[in-house]
């Protein structure tokens, strides 16, 4: 198996007049051909910075990274023809031009011939079910079809490595599923590497061969989703409570609690708290603490481990809490 993406000690910091931020801190990675590789972490963890370095848009402060053996810092001319990238947040293209016209334009940035372009656009639009909309102007397309066009654009040059930054963000279930199936097919059938940065855990579990969990610019673990759950995941104890506790420390200060994350249904005033616990005694301690705080348990159940529990086990908090910490 060919290693397509390699990173060794990649670090990146940003300096401004008011602060210094370390976005990446010594990242090591090896990603192979035909692999859908996920980098999973909360917003601000360093995923986009890593993609920008690997796609030649940003230089690392230290460390070394290669794409198919070419140095991302020094051999950009050799890397750019064989990579591409798409983001869920980018504008799909030029609004007053058709999807086909946009795809033709982007193919010309790679010097594609008319025949090559026609063959690529026919194949991509068929696989992404875009044929009916291919001659419509971009402003006439729905969000889902714009994103299908963006994905088609990222494969227009027949790339060996494709970087995807939250490609299904804000998409409906059907479109997201179609895009995920397409990405897996492209990796397995066309021998590409799909490098996916996401904070969507279900997406990561569904399509990634391996996952690197990233937090504060560091890769915490890198394994298959199954191994991550087996090694690091513990069943979660989930409680629905009312009112919402003033702080998560009511849980995290208790012995036997590995981590906690919560979501709040503001309309009902109900908080759903997921606790990664070490043993049954910890559950009793949680119930006791809630009772002492005057918080009512509406329901509780046990949940088999997902990648979210893996993250909570490793970091002690869920994505929402980490994003809140990073933002503040």
């Amino acid at each position, binding site marked *: 198996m060919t290693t397509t993406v390699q990173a060794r000690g990649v670090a*990146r910091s940003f300096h401004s007049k008011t602060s210094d931020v370390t976005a990446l801190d010594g990242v090591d990675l090896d990603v192979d051909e035909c692999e859908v590789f996920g980098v999973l972490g909360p917003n601000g963890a360093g995923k986009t910075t890593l993609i920008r370095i690997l796609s030649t*848009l940003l230089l690392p402060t230290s460390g070394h990274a290669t794409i198919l053996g070419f140095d991302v810092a020094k051999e950009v001319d050799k890397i750019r023809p064989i990579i591409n*990238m798409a983001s869920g947040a980018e504008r799909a293209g030029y609004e007053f*031009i058709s999807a086909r016209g946009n795809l033709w334009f982007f193919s010309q940035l790679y010097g594609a011939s008319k025949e090559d372009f026609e063959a690529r656009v026919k194949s991509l639009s068929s696989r992404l079910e875009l044929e009916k909309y291919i001659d419509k102007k971009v402003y006439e397309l729905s969000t889902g079809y714009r994103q299908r066009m963006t994905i088609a*654009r990222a494969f227009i040059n027949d790339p060996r490595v494709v970087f995807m930054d939250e490609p299904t963000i804000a998409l409906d279930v059907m479109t997201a599923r179609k895009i995920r199936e397409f990405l897996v097919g492209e990796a397995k059938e066309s021998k590409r590497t799909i490098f996916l940065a996401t904070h969507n855990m279900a997406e990561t579990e569904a399509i990634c061969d391996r996952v690197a969990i990233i937090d504060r610019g560091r890769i915490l673990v890198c394994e298959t989703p199954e191994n991550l759950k087996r090694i690091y995941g513990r069943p979660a104890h989930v409680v629905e409570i009312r009112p919402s506790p003033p702080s998560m420390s009511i849980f995290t200060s208790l012995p036997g609690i590995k981590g906690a994350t919560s979501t709040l249904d503001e309309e009902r005033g109900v908080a759903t708290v997921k606790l990664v616990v070490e043993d049954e005694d910890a559950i009793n301690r949680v119930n006791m603490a809630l009772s002492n705080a005057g918080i009512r348990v509406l329901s509780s159940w046990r949940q088999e481990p997902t990648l979210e529990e893996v993250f909570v086990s490793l970091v002690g908090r869920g994505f929402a809490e980490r994003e809140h910490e990073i933002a503040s």
Partner: protein
Amino acid sequence: MKLRLNLTLWYRTMYSRAWVRVRSTYGEPLWVAVNLAVPLLSSLAMALLYSSTGLSKFAGFAILGGVMLAFWGNVLWSMASQFNWDKEVGIFEIYLISPAPISAVLVGMSLGGILATVPSAALVTIIGWFFFPTPINPSWTVVLLTFVLTLASLYALGMLLSSLYLAYGREAESLNNAIGEAINLLSGLYFPAIGAGSPFPFAVQIVASLIPLTIGMDALRKAVFQTGNVSSVWFDLALLAVMAMVLLFLGDKALKALEERGRRQGTLVVRLK
């Protein structure tokens, strides 16, 4: 073989970017109306001003200024600001991660802009000369040569300004807007900014002479309205050629240097989410 591939890539990038610019310009009726109306109305207003003050023989300057304003405003100046728009919406990073040369993207934008501006310039010429017929004495070869050299030097200036967007964001846009107005004034789009008839003191004329549009407008006025032979404008043409070459050289160097600086400092792209 490699050279041929590089040239093919350069040509295809340039052609497709020009195509995008032309299609986008005609995709929105309101933009078409604005592109046609702004240079026409401002040149007609200036021509009326000349006529109403008994200087109707200079009304042709206003018409010529309107034609060049269309090119300057829509073709070359907006090249830099469109670069910024591409950056803001995330398309710019698609250019950067592709093997396409940025110079080809810029030339394509510029050529597309020229093609998209021709109807506006033609409208100003036809309507302007219909209402304010002014005697002209042109040598069309000299006019064409002057026009091409003026556009070439303006393109090179646009390329230099565009390079600023690789390293800066809103600061570059503010600078662009600020010096745009100063150039409109100093270059004398509607009046002679240098030489006899200039309203500016000599020191200001020297500064104005450093702007390619000033030299281009001066040469075009001579070529269209005065003797119409090359001897009257040879110095301006030589100056424009030198300016074009120097600005192209500086623009190319700046694009490469500022892309590298942008990669180092993380200013090539903006965060979209």
